[in-house]
């Protein structure tokens, strides 16, 4: 009889364990809260959350740090996203950190990405509102890519034009002769040409990719997955634009230089040497040259960074091949 009582006890435990597990599961499912670890809450406001919903992940530097607790509409243009963040992140996220909405992987789950702020800002605490970055949707990314492409093409054209203009200015070269200024100018021009060449390759590649993706060919998944390319591209275009600006400046200064020189010669006072050494124009010119130098270096640096991006892998491979055949052929 003792064993039977023991059996009943065990059966009771068994049934209770099952019921407890069920009730617990239902409770957890219904509440959607983090019971197993402490957390705090942060919010961000967006114009468009692109389908973000309760339960989506929140990431910081690509690591899951919490979940979206609630998405609510504040007014006709503002949507507030409340997030539950793991407690230990309160020593990481600062008040001037920003939040953006991104896409997670191939299937396109929305995620909130939190981007680090600056270290001079205090840490964000429970209930703080973070500033928001615009979200990048695949469509927008495509849009950005093709726009970047157009920009690059435009700038490249401009650069070529400038280089041509400087090259074809016979009077200038006659005057400069073999001075150090002439050598610097030549080097700068070749750098600009190289950058323009690089940019041209890139536009070619981008056109193919954008065309492919739009036509439904190519690996859209990979493209959509890697939103970092947009940032990289933006940066590169910025630099390229800067280079173009510098080159323009250079051309302008050269123009001023040649006209100034003509005037001086007509007036018959001062020698070329003096002109090259002392005038404001000369100063401007050499500053322009060094700026162009810096700009092209930066641009090439960025191209190297882009090299690591798959989108341009084809381009760099082509380039390497071309280089190989060039070195082999002679």
């Amino acid at each position, binding site marked *: 009889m003792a064993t039977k009582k023991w059996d*009943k006890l065990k059966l009771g435990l068994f049934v209770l364990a*099952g019921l407890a597990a*069920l009730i617990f*599961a239902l409770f957890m*499912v219904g509440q*959607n809260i*983090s019971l*197993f*670890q402490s957390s705090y809450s942060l919010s961000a406001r967006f114009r468009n959350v692109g389908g973000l919903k309760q339960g989506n992940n929140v990431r910081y530097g690509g690591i899951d740090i919490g979940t979206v607790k609630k998405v609510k509409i504040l007014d006709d243009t503002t949507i507030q996203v409340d997030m539950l963040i793991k407690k230990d992140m309160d020593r990481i996220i600062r008040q001037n950190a920003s939040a953006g909405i991104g896409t997670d992987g*191939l299937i396109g789950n929305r995620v909130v990405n939190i981007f680090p702020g600056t270290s001079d800002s205090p840490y964000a605490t429970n209930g703080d509102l973070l500033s928001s970055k615009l979200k990048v949707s695949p469509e927008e990314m495509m849009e950005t890519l093709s726009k970047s492409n157009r920009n690059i093409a435009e700038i490249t054209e401009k650069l070529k034009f400038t280089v041509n203009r400087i090259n074809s200015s016979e009077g200038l070269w006659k005057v400069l002769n073999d001075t150090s200024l002439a050598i610097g100018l030549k080097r700068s021009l070749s750098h600009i040409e190289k950058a323009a060449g690089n940019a041209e390759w890139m536009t070619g590649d981008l056109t193919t990719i954008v065309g492919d993706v739009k036509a439904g060919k190519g690996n859209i998944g990979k493209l959509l997955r890697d939103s970092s390319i947009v940032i990289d591209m933006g940066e590169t275009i910025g630099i390229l634009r800067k280079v173009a600006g510098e080159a323009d400046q250079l051309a302008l200064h050269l123009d001023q230089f040649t006209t100034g020189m003509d005037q001086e010669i007509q007036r018959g006072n001062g020698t070329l040497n003096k002109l090259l050494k002392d005038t404001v124009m000369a100063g401007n010119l050499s500053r322009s040259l060094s700026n162009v130098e810096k700009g092209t270096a930066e641009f090439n640096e960025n191209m190297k960074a882009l090299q690591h991006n798959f989108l341009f892998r084809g381009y760099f491979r082509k380039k390497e091949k071309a280089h190989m055949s060039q070195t082999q052929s002679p």
Partner: protein
Amino acid sequence: MTTVIREYDLLQQINQGKGTDLIKIIKLNIPLKVRPFLEEAGGLAGFTGKFFAEGFRPRYEFQEFIRQCFIIGYKSLPLVGLTGFIMGLVLTMQLRPNLVQYGLESALPGMVGIAIVREIGPVITALIFAGKIGSSIGAELGSMKVTEQIDAMEVSGTNPFKYLVFTRVLATTLMLPILVILSDAISLYGSYIGINIRGATSFGFYWDEVFRNLTFGDVMPAFVKTYFFGFAIGLVGCHKGYHSNKGTEGVGRSANSAVVLSSILVFLIDLISVQITDLMGLN
């Protein structure tokens, strides 16, 4: 006119308990291969009807019910737990490479959680349960039938249907859901271990992930269908045993066909339940 009269005569015969002619006519018109299936279905349906007709009238065999709950529920836990654990672990390790390919490794807990709670937990547990309990009930009742123990009960003033069948079917119906819940929990723990073989996820974060991805619509239909699984397994086991043929061979056949038929029924119920869940918009 003549056909009407004939039908009337046949109806008369049926009313007088002499339905043999009509039954013969119907029987002859059913293809040979379909007959055993129809007989089986009819037998099972009749048995189910008897279950509801007889079971809920007093007197209740409470002691026997508790004993059966212990045997059927508690004693199945180690087996069900072991298979559940392995399923969770294996499923996780099998899914991982594919998810890693798509960069969805972080979705592993949620995905495994849904797979286990919605489908794998209930169905695998029910199949294991059918194998263990369906066969043992089939064999037990079969041998009781063959060795006249069921008759002896009847003679001893006990309704053997209530004492043997009702208690067992009720026990399987009520115990399987509990087994499934516990097996789900063990499975998910197995999955947690599977995730930590190649990665590092904290225990708390894993469970949060699992529950975050689960909805009421995942848990409830899966839970409800296990009652039907349990009912089907118990009923088929008892039906096969209770109507076992004479001889020891009959006992073996009852046990065997109990497992086969109840496994098929588990899948059929699963199929129906997914449709109903779909229609109810809980998917």
